[in-house]
């Protein structure tokens, strides 16, 4: 129960932050990617603002053995950069550039982004549904 309340609070803050920062506006995000056009650096300020509290949080987490509600902290990620990380990030970046939406803002703006916002979400869920199969296929190709 407690876990759900805190999760809802953190989701709510995430959504408010995305909305206030302008990141739910697809044109502002495309503006950040549009280095050869009318470049808009706002996204860098958002990233910088978000990384600061989170850097403190990782340091606090390192001094504790468990999170406040008793679960273990996520394991430190390995240093290995596999092909799926690179291929996935390139595919994600291409989709992100095409319409200026990534998963967080797509959900935060769902109530006002209209039919196209809903269409994007449906396609995104379909892509996520297909991902485990595609990952197996890529791994098989890579092993050859």
């Amino acid at each position: 129960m407690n876990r759900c309340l805190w999760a809802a609070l953190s989701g709510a803050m995430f959504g408010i932050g995305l909305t206030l920062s302008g990141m739910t506006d697809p044109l502002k995000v495309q503006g950040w990617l549009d280095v050869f056009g009318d470049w808009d650096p706002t996204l860098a300020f958002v990233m910088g603002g978000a990384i600061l509290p989170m850097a403190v949080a990782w340091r606090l987490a390192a001094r504790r053995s468990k999170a406040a509600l008793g679960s273990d902290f996520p394991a430190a990620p390995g240093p290995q950069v596999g092909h799926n990380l690179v291929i996935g990030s390139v595919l994600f970046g291409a989709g992100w550039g095409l319409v200026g939406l990534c998963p967080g803002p797509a959900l935060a703006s769902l109530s006002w982004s209209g039919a196209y916002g809903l269409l994007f979400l449906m396609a995104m869920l379909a892509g996520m549904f297909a991902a485990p199969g595609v990952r197996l296929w890529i791994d098989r190709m890579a092993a050859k």
Partner: protein
Amino acid sequence: MMPSDWIWGFCGGLIIGLAAALYLLINGRVMGASGIIGGLVDRTGRDSANERLCFLAGLVGVPAILVLMVGSDDTQLIQSPSIVIAAGLLVGLGTRLANGCTSGHGVCGISRLSLRGIVATVFYILAGGLCVLLFRHVLGVI
């Protein structure tokens, strides 16, 4: 003077970072939007489904209330439906293959100096930049 968009961006960013900090320090989890949704889609996160659904309810519901009260000047998507569908498929597939998106790799990964997070962020920004260059300035379709 700094444009007000940059100041709003920074303040919104701080709130995003605080949300991620809460999720880590209290729930013990990485706040990555694609991971939270994707775990529900492919059922790898079924043990924590309630927590994920509550996070998503807050993420969709509270901005909805905020925008009902103060309005929004966000641009509506104007591309053709086929581009919107292609983009959604790429974002869904890509973030799950890479195990993270802007929030997971970008905010949570870079802030702990994770090599994977930094590499992912470099690649998705490069791919996004090239995509905008190609489709906006060369082909003129977005």
